[in-house]
């Protein structure tokens, strides 16, 4: 136990100069922040899901006085979401190897999928068979899909920016790690998208 006022000599050191400066996966700090961010978003979706079921208990018919949303575009989008997992997985797998070409191609494919999903989403809005200002059910459906579309567009822009970077020499270690994290986030968008599909196409038909 040293006295507080004596100058402290420090002959011992812990040399960290040899430590790496890029980390992938859960070791990356941005990965952790992304997890927190997804937790926030997941919480918001969960609360709106809860609101959906809460409002469900306040009506005898569901959907109240509407046809359920038409399945076509929702089903197509679900397929697009499922297929898009492949390039996301590819980016995530190849990025730690430093395979810039594979990452670039993966990002290209992923952004095409994201664009397709966004385009289909626009069509999906036209076949919901309700308007947000009709009643509480319609409001919830629009907010769920609207919020998810916001995520979709954000993710599309992020992927496009990464794609642009991947054509420049700046696509080095940290950016590759970012591309892998971007894939994690895409998974999140896919999972929430499928859950919302189940909610608005599924529960309106089977519950």
């Amino acid at each position: 136990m040293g006295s507080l006022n004596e100058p402290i000599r420090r002959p011992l050191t812990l040399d960290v100069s040899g430590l790496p400066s890029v980390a992938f996966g859960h070791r990356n700090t941005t990965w952790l922040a992304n997890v927190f961010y997804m937790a926030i978003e997941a919480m918001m979706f969960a609360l709106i899901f809860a609101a959906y079921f809460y409002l469900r208990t306040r009506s005898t018919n569901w959907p109240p006085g509407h046809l359920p949303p038409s399945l076509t575009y929702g089903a197509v989008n679900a397929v697009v979401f499922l297929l898009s997992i492949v390039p996301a997985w590819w980016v995530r797998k190849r990025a730690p190897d430093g395979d810039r070409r594979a990452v670039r191609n993966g990002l290209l494919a992923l952004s095409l999928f994201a664009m397709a999903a966004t385009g289909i989403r626009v069509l999906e809005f036209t076949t919901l068979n309700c308007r947000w200002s009709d009643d509480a059910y319609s409001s919830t459906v629009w907010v769920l899909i609207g919020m998810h579309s916001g995520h979709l567009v954000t993710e599309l822009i992020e992927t496009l920016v990464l794609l642009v970077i991947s054509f420049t020499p700046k696509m080095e270690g940290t950016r590759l790690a970012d591309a892998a994290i971007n894939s994690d986030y895409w998974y999140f968008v896919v999972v929430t998208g499928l859950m919302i599909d189940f909610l608005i196409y599924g529960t309106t038909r089977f519950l």
Partner: protein
Amino acid sequence: MNAELNFVSFRLVAQAMPVDPGHHHVLQPAAPQAGNIEWLYWVVFWILFAVFALMLAGFATATAKARVISSRPLPIIEDEEGDHRARWALGSALSITVITLFVILVLSVVTGKRVEGLSSKNPVTIQITGHQWWWEVTYPNSQADQTITTANEIHVPLNTPVVVLTNSADVIHSFWAPSITGKRDLVPGYSSAFWFQVAKAGIYHGQCAEFCGLQHAHMGLSVIAETADKFQEWQQRQIKLAAEPSTSEAIRGRGVFLTHACLMCHTIRGTDAGSHLGPDLTHVASRKMIAAETLPNTAGALAGWIVDPQRIKPGTLMSPNPLAPDDLQALVVYLQSLQ
């Protein structure tokens, strides 16, 4: 033109005749509901007071024992032994805490059951609807002409269970008469029910307890508990149509009522006035107070209220009525005849 009537301001009225708004105190119960809660309050209070005293004594003793006066940082104590000795203290303190909390939980749940559980039959049923900023009170009856509608004053028979059905016409209000029972929110889209039973005759004041807009402060009510006979008598009177005016001034007053803004909002059963935007005035003279227990029901206050309600309750939906003085006089006479 209404200048000469402006002297009837609220403050003058209030000073001229102090009114007793009735009992309004959590710890002065007049009903078994409030009584049970008061009992629980005091039991929990004394338990917690003991906890408070013990904790403070602990900190005081510790301070007295350990205090060292020095303005320089003292050396650090190594005290593994002390930590070890204190473990049992922490353990027993926590055990006592848990036991205390459990006792409070049981007392609370048991009291809650006693307050809420309805045991008696043949209750009087009252429907209370909250409006911005007054209470519509209805005594429903299967025969429409036996239904009583009044405002802000709830007459109940003594020692008889009263079931209150609640509803709201606009925003959330909360029914609360502290000497009788705890509060119940009036939530739009929900109808709920609670009950009470008054044990002591008297007038009990209540007030809206959920913030409901501009005049939340002036949304009072009173519960008037009276013997079964008196209650019956009151009921019989309320069922009747409005009294026909007998004097010429009162007849003129009815004319004023029916040709001015009054009939746009109010009902007087037995006349053409039948709107439900404001309180039912069929027996307005039988009430002690007006404007949701804001003013005493006197000629002066009534006139002041009719002329300029926005002065007394700024924001109320009732419009100012700049009537000619003799019209106003006649109207007040008519309204005061509506026993």
